[in-house]
């Protein structure tokens, strides 16, 4: 089992014929994802790795019965692409681009809520379900393996670091979800924790958070009732206030979004909070015993 993305998910790639779209279509196909089509306006009839390209999401969905889409189009066009997907029945939408205007992100997640669409991102590495042999995203294929750990992260490479350390310790994953590094994203730690709660295969959950916002504090409220252990690692202890640390959302603003506040809330809620990424695997092994 897994959450949100399973081997049944039928995936299209918006922006498939661009550099990124082309490369990652190949990677997804190689991993086992059911990539059933691509969309690149004006490129209908072409194919990428044997996958047919369509001019519109409408024609791609009509032809392939796709229910999930991963978006690679440049940020200024991402809102249009997201709405095109949602208005044509896509129910799982992964938004890879960074630098999408916040107002566009608000419009996307608002519409998604009305239509019952799950949005992952923007500014995410996507999500991967190793036991289902499927992924929608840009993460490397070789660092995951099936197992009982659910991972939810804000950051890409840091989650790779942690997933790989779990894999090396023999601790496989049900699903690894990247929420995205932007201020406004489709998921919250709470919404992903709820998904993991319902997944019988997930026995422990790893949260990889960072400074900025209060998503970790909100998650802490839910950890008590989760019925599954949570291990949390948060990045940004050394970050000065008022500076954006790479991610648009990673900023301590007017005294809010500090690591101390987040770790305190998570610890009080019963999560195992570790201070360094290399301590995660050991903590997970500990709570699994």
């Amino acid at each position, binding site marked *: 089992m897994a959450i949100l993305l399973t081997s049944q998910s039928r995936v299209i790639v918006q922006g498939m014929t661009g550099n990124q779209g082309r490369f990652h279509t190949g990677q997804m196909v190689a991993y086992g994802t059911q990539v059933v089509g691509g969309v690149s306006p004006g490129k209908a009839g072409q194919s990428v790795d044997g996958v047919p390209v369509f001019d519109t999401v409408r024609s791609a969905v009509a032809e392939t019965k796709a229910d999930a889409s991963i978006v690679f189009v440049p940020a200024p066009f991402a809102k249009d692409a997201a709405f095109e997907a949602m208005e044509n029945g896509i129910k799982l939408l992964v938004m890879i681009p960074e630098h999408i205007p916040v107002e566009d992100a608000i419009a996307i997640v608002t519409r998604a809520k009305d239509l019952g669409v799950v949005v992952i991102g923007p500014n995410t590495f996507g999500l991967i379900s190793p036991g289902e042999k499927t992924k929608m995203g840009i993460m490397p294929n070789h660092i995951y393996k099936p197992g009982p750990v659910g991972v939810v992260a804000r950051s890409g*490479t840091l989650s790779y670091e942690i997933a790989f350390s779990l894999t090396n310790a023999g601790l496989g994953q049900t699903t690894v979800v990247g929420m995205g590094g932007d201020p406004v994203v489709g998921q919250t730690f709470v919404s992903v924790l709820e998904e993991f709660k319902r997944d019988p295969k997930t026995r422990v959950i790893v949260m990889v958070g960072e400074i900025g916002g209060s998503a970790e504090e909100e998650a802490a409220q839910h950890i008590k009732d989760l019925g599954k252990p949570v291990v949390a690692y948060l990045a940004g202890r050394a970050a000065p206030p008022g500076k954006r640390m790479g991610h648009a959302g990673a900023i301590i603003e007017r005294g809010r979004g500090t690591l101390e506040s987040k770790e305190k809330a998570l610890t009080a809620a019963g999560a195992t909070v570790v201070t360094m990424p290399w301590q995660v695997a050991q903590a997970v092994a500990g709570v699994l015993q």
Partner: protein
Amino acid sequence: MKQYEYLAKQILAAYGIPIPAGRVVDNPLQAYQAVEAIGPAALKAQVLVGGRGKAGGIKFATTPEEAQKLAQDMLGMNLKGYIVERLYAEGKLNIEQELYVSVTTDRNAKAPLVMASLAGGMEIEDVADEQIVRRYVDPRVGVMPYFGREMASALGLTGTIFKEFADLIVKLYTIYHEKDAELVEINPLAVVNGHLVAADARLNIDDSAMFRHPEIEAIEEGSELEKKVHEIGLAYVELDGDIAVMANGAGMAMATLDAIEFFGGKPANFLDAGGGASVEPTAQALGVLVSMEPKVIFVNIFGGITRCDDVARAILQVKETIGIPVPLVVRLVGTNEAEGVRMLADSGIAAYSEMAEAAEEAVKLAGEGR
């Protein structure tokens, strides 16, 4: 992207929000002329830091001569690390009452949030919760005039001020929406002669939306080095330690700083070389670290999309061209790891595979740590 006060006020005025009489001044003679024209005025340093007043960045001049003298002292002064290049001379107001109003993006609600208070003039964080009226905007609906009237009513305003306030809320939201602001704040929103005037204003534009606002000047914040690295398209923040750091991905870069502090060292910077950076930007980024003249350089790479052999190529390129005159610690794992590690080994650079060991070594070489 923060905007200077005078630019923020120009935008407010363009949307029909009353602002005090004012002039931008960049030499003492202009300050003289400004006060001659508008009368007694506040001279306000145009810098992007809070708490200007307390730091000596706001002075009052009653005569043109006084303004000229004050401007002479203020222009070029260092205010919390920022050099004052411009002043804004603004007519003195006889303020009867101070209110607060802002529109901002609420990350958790994923919606715009309008806040207002009768307790204006201080930072909103210092105002008691029960003194603040908060209302979320449904992005499908936006802000219609009734929204403004309901906020005015919730604040207990009456008469002329009620009407002006309700009207102002609509205009403020229009600015937030049309200019892609992440914050537009008027504090204090002053009552002068029975009418509302925006006495001070803050406007931050969403960096990601700058592409659709050619009318707004991009104001790069930060030190010269920060600006330089931002120009090559990388995220960079200067810190005050002496171990220069490069990692790929924002989260990894943050975790790398944390690891250095964990072992008792002090990072000199945050540098995200990108989640999928190729040879050239990685070499440029490394070049910046060399130019900082740190005690040690620590490169921490988890190659996913980034390929370890590309990183190795970038390191060797910098070593052969500008040279790396300080100890270099490289941690390299992931895609094409074997190739990258071999290339470095051939040039006498031993790469680590564990982040903890590498971070500890970097701290040790800097002569710090526990």
